[in-house]
């Protein structure tokens, strides 16, 4: 009953609209032409209303037909440009998100003075922009510098003293640099702790956060 009431109301509005538009029509020879188009539009309106009542889909693709004479570019072109713009925006947003996360991870890692992080590479999942993997890069050589500075500031006391390693098997000057590039056990331990902390902070699996030492 409610559906029938809606249909009758809609038809009444259409009839009133048709009468109003007919009053606007010009006289003379052009009147017949405009009246024909107006009649077609009224048929369309009544069919639309009837289709809405019976929930039929037969009017679904009608608006697509009528768009062709607007002089605007085709709908496919507009959609393609829109998708391209959306893709660019998404890439930019992902890049900004990745850089922000990288800075955040560096700030988190910087709380531990035993190691110095130089970079944090964040790779994101393509679809949902979830964190796929975080790789923290620590500096090997700056560890002594950071510790020395801390010792000179009087913070931490003997924490800044680098353990003295006496290597009697050193053979040639060329071999002297290679042991200095490797991280010490304490540094590796600190890096592992920091990695664990970062994974817990971002609610990631432990294997999603990695670290490596570079010069």
């Amino acid at each position, binding site marked *: 009953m409610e559906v029938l009431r809606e249909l009758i109301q*809609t038809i009444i*509005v*259409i009839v*009133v*609209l048709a009468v*109003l*538009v007919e009053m*606007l*029509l*010009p*006289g*003379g*020879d*052009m*009147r017949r*032409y*405009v009246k*024909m*188009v*107006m009649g*077609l*539009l009224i*048929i*369309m*309106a009544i*069919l*639309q*209303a009837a*289709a*809405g009542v019976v929930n039929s889909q*037969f*009017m679904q*693709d*009608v*608006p697509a*037909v*009528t*768009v*062709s*004479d607007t002089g605007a570019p085709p709908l496919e072109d507009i959609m393609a440009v829109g998708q391209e713009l959306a893709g660019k925006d998404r890439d930019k947003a992902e890049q900004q998100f990745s850089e922000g996360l990288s800075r955040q991870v560096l700030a988190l890692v910087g709380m531990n003075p035993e190691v110095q992080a130089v970079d944090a590479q964040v790779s994101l999942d393509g679809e949902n922009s979830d964190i796929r993997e975080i790789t923290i890069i620590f500096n090997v050589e700056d560890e002594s510098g950071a510790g020395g500075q801390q010792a000179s500031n009087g913070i931490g006391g003997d924490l800044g003293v680098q353990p003295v390693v006496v290597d009697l098997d050193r053979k040639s000057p060329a071999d002297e640099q290679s042991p200095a590039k490797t991280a010490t056990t304490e540094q590796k331990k600190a890096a592992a702790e920091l990695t664990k902390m970062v994974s817990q902070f971002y609610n990631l699996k432990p294997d999603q956060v990695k670290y490596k030492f570079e010069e």
Partner: protein
Amino acid sequence: MDILQISGIALTGAVLAVVLKQKAPPMAVLLSVAVGVIIFLLVLGKIGAIVDILRQLSERADISSIYLGTLLKIIGIAYIADFIAQICRDADQGAFATKVELAAKIMVLVLAVPIVVAVLQALLRLVP
């Protein structure tokens, strides 16, 4: 009191055109064009209210705005063609008036083609 203003302009223009037609017929045609344009511009601002009402009614009846836009375009074409054809006839150029009306009819039919196709599709889909 706009109707008095418009009537006054039209009467004055008519009297002047009659006088000018005896002495300078081209000026009489120009005068009729000018009076027509002035009257058209005077009522142009009031058409917006009618279009608003039509839009509200079409929204209430769930008629797509594309259809209403097409209908208003067609009415506009018909009015402009009628206006220009009348001016051409006043200038004793009946051939031009016929051509303008022909162009308007073709444009109206071109605008009506998508609607005809849409009605046809809808009616054909109704057939089981």
